[in-house]
Structures are given as structure tokens and as C-alpha cells.
């Protein structure tokens, strides 16, 4: 069945921006929890949480969106980026 409304490029771009913002917010919320711990604990804990609970594509999208430009991320998330595991298998 193929009647599903195919999103236009514009809609897709808007969604992409929205999704980018949403993932940044989710990561920021995780950091807000772990920030009470010393950075040496908090940074890996943030990455571990994302590795454990985010799907392969969410992590890929997140890394693709922020690996180059991570200014809008929570400072701790920025430091956790390197520890976020790219997908295993495929």
C-alpha cells in the first residue's frame, strides 16, 4: 500500500531540524542527570546510556548531526560524543 503521504523535501528538512533539536534535548536531559557526578564518571555514563537505549539509527543521526558542530550540545554531551558507539552489525 503506497498511499502514505510522502513528505516533501521542505517537510523533510523541517523534520530533520526538529529531530536534531529533539536528540540534542534528549542527550541534554541525560547529561542533566549525570552532571551531579564527577566528570570522569558522568561523561562515560552519558555515552553508556545513549549506547544502551538509543537505536542504531538514532545514534547515527546524532553523530552525523553533531560530530562536526557540537556547539549547541550540553558541554558534558559534547565530551561524551567520542564514546558514543557507532552501530555494531548492520
Amino acid at each position, binding site marked *: 500500500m503506497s*498511499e*502514505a503521504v510522502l513528505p516533501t523535501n521542505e517537510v523533510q528538512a523541517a*523534520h530533520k531540524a526538529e*529531530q536534531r533539536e529533539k536528540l540534542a534535548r534528549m542527550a541534554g*536531559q541525560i547529561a542533566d542527570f549525570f552532571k551531579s557526578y564527577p566528570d570522569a564518571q558522568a561523561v562515560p555514563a552519558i555515552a553508556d546510556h545513549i549506547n*544502551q537505549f538509543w537505536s*542504531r539509527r538514532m545514534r547515527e543521526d546524532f553523530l552525523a548531526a553533531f560530530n562536526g558542530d557540537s556547539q549547541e550540545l550540553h558541554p558534558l554531551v559534547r565530551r561524551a560524543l567520542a564514546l558514543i558507539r557507532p552501530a555494531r552489525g548492520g
Partner: protein
Amino acid sequence: MSLIKEIDFGTPIRVSEKQVTLTIDGQSVTVPAGTSVMAAAMSVGTKIPKLCATDMLEPFGSCRLCLVEIEGRRGTPSSCTTPAEEGMVVRTQTEQLSTLRKGVMELYISDHPLDCLTCSANGDCELQDMAGAVGLREVRYGYEGENHVFAKTADGLANENWLAKDTSNPYFTYDPTKCIVCNRCVRACEEVQGTFALTITGRGFDSRVAPGPTDFLGSECVSCGACVQACPTATLMENSVIQMGQPEHSKVTTCAYCGVGCSFKAEMQGDKVVRMVPYKDGKANEGHSCVKGRFAWGYATHKDRITKPMTREKITDPWREVSWEEAINHAASEFKRIQSRYGRESLGAITSSRCTNEEVFLMQKLVRAGFRNNNVDTCARVCHSPTGYGLKTTLGTSAGTQDFKSVAKADVILVIGANPTDGHPVFASRMKKRLRQGAKLIVADPRRIDMVKSPHIKAEHHLQLLPGTNVALINAIAHVVVTEGLVAEDYVRERCDLADFEIWARFIAQAHNSPEASEEFTGVPAADVRAAARLYATADNGAIFYGLGVTEHSQGSTMVMGMANLAMATGNIGRDGVGINPLRGQNNVQGACDMGSFPHEFTGYRHVSDDATRQIFEMMWGVPLDVEPGLRIPNMLDEAVGGSFKALYVQGEDIAQSDPNTQHVTAGLSAMECVVVQDLFLNETAKYAHVFLPGSSFLEKDGTFTNAERRINRVRQVMAPLSGKAEWQVTIDFARALGYEMAYAHPSEIMDEIARLTPSFAGVSYDKLDKLGSVQWPCNDKAPTGTPVMHVDRFVRGKGKFMITEYVPTEERTGARFPLILTTGRILSQYNVGAQTRRTANSAWHDEDVLEIHPFDAENRGIKSGDLVALASRSGDISLRAEVSERMQPGVVYTTFHHAETGANVITTDFSDWATNCPEYKVTAVEVRRTNYYSQWQERNREEDISLRRITGRLPDAAE
């Protein structure tokens, strides 16, 4: 098959370490001290005649039928009120007793109708049984004298003693002419239910049972059915029995409403349910029930049930009824097409917390082994996923720590963000019973719920916090515990990780966590918080019970950990009477989580990336499994809107009504190419579906449900599936059509596989469940009969882990545009999305969602009760009727989400818990104003109720 009848001992069996031995009719009997002579006699099979006694109630001693003779005692004491004593010699049958009993019965019958043949209790009448038991043969007084039986006196005048039937309650009838004033109904309402709606008015011959100065429906009666069950005559009788007659066989099964998981006897005539009667040997409810489980089962055979599979090309096309084979093959070929075009991860499924463990297990197996990804989630995502995360992190297991019975040992009960009298009424009755015995109660809730104050119970402290500030409150309570030296130091030293404790204690002792500092956020006076903290911390047994008011927040998981911290710090985990217990929403939401419904976990909460666990599953299922976590429900919808998630199989769940931000949900569903919905009814989600597979109700299948106390209860089939197949059979067919074989002949075989794959279920089998009635997991070699209380000597994770729980306010803020906070919840008579209860007479109590608003906020806006008001948030707007209520605090409004046409979730946002993405239903910034119109969404929804639900060859009214 026959009717299951539990033994009635006449009075409760007491628990005592001391045993006494007495002689009854020459036979030696040993019973726990405190047991009545009546119950002692029954324990050796001697039934002493009785009318006012039943073992659900305390003895009363009014009917004078259970008289006995006791050597060395004067007179003939009533056996129900006389405790058995060491060396007592009792005679239950003598000439004297026989004469006395006959005399008593003669008086009863002289004022009772003699229409036994046409009476609704014929076949199930204790009065008739007793007349037979005592050998009553004549009534010397005649029937013409003063009586309650006849509407007119012998000389044709109106009989002032006569009362007409009260048929106001939709489920039962009160016929005062048949009443013997045994008080059983009044006592059941008080002792069992704890509502105190019934009373005896008048004295002597004028004594009448009455629901206060009104009729049953207008009274405080909550229609739990306890009075009907207690009535020994036809005075209080189920309308279904009045219409159909007595049942001829019964089976014990488990209610499919809330997470209490009450056991019921389904009493049947053939495959027709006559009534559902709570089962006394059911451990979750011990013979009690609520209006939903007891009476609201008629949806199962409602005319709206869809019993034939259907398909359609576009959602705007009318549905076309097809064969099972065609529907399943079509869905499977679409799923295959979509997966080959868009990739392995473009498919997913949502398992049902209303279906059985076995059905849930097969659904997640279908996803993991059939779809070959981990895109499976369940409605726990939107309710108790933070419980899973929070309790696993701190204690090591994703479930409550106690059995329900444990509350009978609690001294201080802390209820947080739960409304047990409405959401979990049978458990609320247990809790209220304990409170009447003297336990103290602390309620933390934004609303003044019934637990705060209702007949014979009153909370010591109502911490009426602002929605969204739970963590600030729990930290303030813990701050008092730590800074006032109330920590259970020995317990913490022995049971918990000390380094973590010390870090936590330093954090919690900081001034910003003090009640004085947090008052600014929570609005709760610091002195109240301090007093409540001291009360909980100094209790011998302090128990926490909580609900969705804890979890459905952006800091839901933090709050769960905050409560676990508090319970550990005060030594309140690991024995009877204490603990930290989620009151779970749906009948099998605990089971759905246990069965591996989460995208990151196999059964028994083991992460998919754990190689050893995954290999066991791969070996058993014969396919390689994905090592990466899949998508959670909100992520699925996000990716659908983004265009990468294309097909969804939704079993027994109505995300278009229950999930937050409805317009985002429907945008996601609309963007998918194939949506399969399996349900009893054409629900809201089905409007966006391309394939509809009929579901079956709990009456139509075998399986198990697991309740909030981890109790695995049997569900037993009492009628054939109306559609010809139960869900587990459909899943097998669907998997086969996808090319993955599953072979099970009966749900018991599915449970055997679960047991083989899951250490905490290793000892579970249908044989064991049939033998023991139920078991609480973990059930394995270490605990062959299950585990009522967890973490007894050590925590499941080893040492209890304190977590730092900094309060982080939600991003959802009130402001000039949206100055009020909306919080949502449920009420007693309706259940969840209402698909079931709205199709029963329960709507007599609640036929629309209303907005509760404080008089101050109402007056500011010129709103009166009954006015139509517009409720708007950043997500959307709806209109509904207002009810001005002092249960609310100023600044906070409340509504329910039971009625699809209201669309409460059009208002809620997609903010969610940081750890689990559980939506923040409990905090939405809104504005309320008077209006004359329904909202655009509501108008469109009303049109789509018809346009998206057409069925070829049927009139549109068949839809919801």
C-alpha cells in the same frame, strides 16, 4: 465441570502462633488461638447453621442461628462470636439447639416472601438452605400480620413497612422485601470495601438497609459488589442473575482491567457469562472486587466487536472483510515489501499490556526473530518504564518489592502520585483497612484525592505539591532523614554500597535540598515536609506505594531512584510491611515488561547487547538476532514522520488515544505504508490502519497475566474466540507467512519456552500454577514456590546503590499564554482509553471527560460547573465541560483521557523522561477559557470517526 464453591468458615481464620485444642461433637480439633468455635467446627467439616456470619466479615452474632452448647457454660452462646479455647467441649446438635434454631427460622420466614420457585436466589439462597437445615416445616404465626413483604395489607391499604425495589444501580437490584437485616451488606461495605455507603436505618422491626438518604446510584456506593456477594438472600442480586438464572459451571480466571490482577470465578451458563464473582482464594484480591472487574465485562460480547479480519488499500477506503488467510498473507507481503525497500529497521510492533504473557512473548519473538530487528515496545513506555529503570539501577530488579498483603503490616504508608481508590480500588480497600487499624498515611499528590480524607480514614499529612516537583519533594524528605540523624545506619552499612551512600548523603544534606529551600518549587510548607519525613523515617515499617504521578514526568526515573534512596536510607526494604511498590496500570503491564517487550531487553530484563544471553536466544530460535537496541514508541513515531519507519503492527493498544501529543502520533501513523491493528474494536489507531485483525477478550483464551506484585495468575478460556483465533495463534500464522516457523499447540508450551529462556521464570509451569493458584517471580530452583518479598537478605544487584537525584525542573513552563498546569489521570468507573468500560453500563457514573478546576481559577475566568471551556496548550486545543472543584489547588487543572471524542492527549506534549522517554503526561502548561464551540481537532475527529471507519456493506454505526 461444576460450580466452584469456596469453603465458608463463617468467621475469618486467625493467624496465631499459639494453637488451641478443643472437642466438637466428640471430635478433637486444633486451631490457631482466636479462631471462633464456628470456624473450628467448619475446619473439620461441621457446618453450624448460620445467616449473619461469613468468613469475609468479622463475627456479628445477630441471627442467633449458630447457637451451640459448651460444657460448663450457661445458656447457648453463638458459635461465631465465641473464641475456641483449650479443652473446650462443644456440642453443635442437641434437642435444645434444634428447637431454638427452628424457632429462629420460623420468625425469619414469617416475614419473608414464599416465592422461592420464582426467586432470583433460587438455587443459591442461604435462607432457604437454613430453613432446610433446621427442618422448618410450619410457620405458626401465619403471614398476615405486620410485615415487610406485601405492598398492601389484608384490608387493601398501603403497607407502610413495604419498600419498592431500588433498581437505580445498573448492575444489581435491591429488593427490601427479601431482607432479613443480617447486616452482612453493611459490614461488607465497611470492612471489606471501606466505603461506608450502607447503613441500617430505624430500630427493631423498622430496621432497613439503606444507602443513606438516597438510592444506590445517587449514594456513595462505588458498586464494588461486596454487598451483593455478602447477601445471603435475593435482597441484593446481580441483574444478570435476575435475567438469566443461576450459573451451572465456573472457572477461575484473572480480571483484565488494572494491575491488581484480581482472581474471579467466571460463572457460566454454557459459554455465556452469568456473573463474575471475586475468588476468595485469589491471593491478589482475597475475595474482593471493584465495579470494573465485577460488573463491566459486557464489552466482551458488545455489538461493536469486530470479529472478521479486514483490509483496505488507503485509510480513506472503506474496510473490506476478508478471510484470516487473506488478511495475514496480505499484511505479511506488505511487511516484506516494505522491509526490502526501506531496510530491516523500517518495521516494528507494539505488544499489548492487555494480552497474556504468552501472547506478548510471541509478539516480541515475531519482531526479534521474524522482523530481525529490535523495534518492539509496549505501553509501559508511557506508564512505568521509569520504574523499570529506576528500581533496576538502585535495587537490581525492575519490579515492586512486596506482595499486596504486605500492606497489612505497614505502620506508615506513603502514597505518592497514585490514586488507589480510583486506579487500584481493590488494593485501596486493603490499604484503608490497615489505616482503620491505626497505620498512618502520608499522601503526596497535587490533588486532594479520596485517600486524603474519606470515611474513617484521614492522612496525617497531605503534601499538596505542584505537578513536576516530585524530585524536589523527595529530596527534601531525604534531607530531613539525613540531617536529623534518622538514617538506619546498621541497615545501610550492611546492605548498601557505602561509598555511594556517602556521596549521596553529602549531596542530599546540602542546603538547597532542605524543605525550606524546596518549598519555593513544591509549594509544600517546610514544616509539613519535616513532620512527614520524621513520621516515615521513624516508623517500624514504612511502605511506599506510587503510581503514574511519579513516573510520567521528565524526571520520572530520577523520582523512582529518589524513593529507592529514601527507602534504603530508612531500612525500609526487604521484609514484610515495607518496600517500594509501583501500582501498575494495566492488567499485564508487568508481564509485558517481563516478557521482553522493551526494545533493548530480552525476557527477564537482559540487554540485547549481552552476548551470552543473546546466544541462548539465537540457539533456541535458530536465527541471528540484532545486537542493537531498537526504537521506542516515541522514536518510532518520530522516524515515521521523518520517513524511515514505514510499518507497524499494534496489538491491543490504542496509541492514537492514549499516547501524548495526538496530532504527532497520527502524523506518524499517517506517514506509514502499512499499519496493522489487532483489537476488539475499531479503535482510534485503527482509523489509520490498513489491516485489521480481530482480537479476543480475556474470556476467550488461555494464558497468564502478571500483576503489580509480580504474581503470575492463570487466565482460563470460558468461551471460544469470537473471531476463531486467539492472538497467540494469529502471531504464529503471521510469523509463518513471513517465513519464520513457530510451533505451539497450547499457551502452556509457550510458557515452557519462557521458563527455559528466563532464569526468573525457570520454575514456572501451568502445572505449578494449577497446583499453587499463582506464583510471584522469581520462581526457580532457589524459590520453587515464588518470591512474595524481594531483597530479603541482600539486594538483587548485591549492594543497594544510592543515586544522586538532583532536581531539574521540566522545560514545560507556565507563562502568560499558558498560566495553568494540566495534569491527567483516571477515575474509578472507566479504564484507560475506555474502549472496554465505555461499552458497559459504567458510563452511568462517568459519560464524559470533564475539566476539574479550582474555584479561584474558575471565578477569574467566569467559569461555572457545566460550562463548556476551551483547554489549550502548545500542542493543541480541545473543548470540554468544566467542574469547579476544591480537590484542585489554584493553578492546577485536571482531566481524564477515557473518552476518545474529548481528545485529552491533543493537549499533552512530547516532553518525556530523560532515561526512558516516558511522556510527561502530568505537566502541561495550559490556558482555560469559556467557549461555545468544540475545537477544530474535535470537529475533524468527529467526521473521521465516520469517514475512516466505514465497512463495506455495513451501516456506519458499527464503529466506535
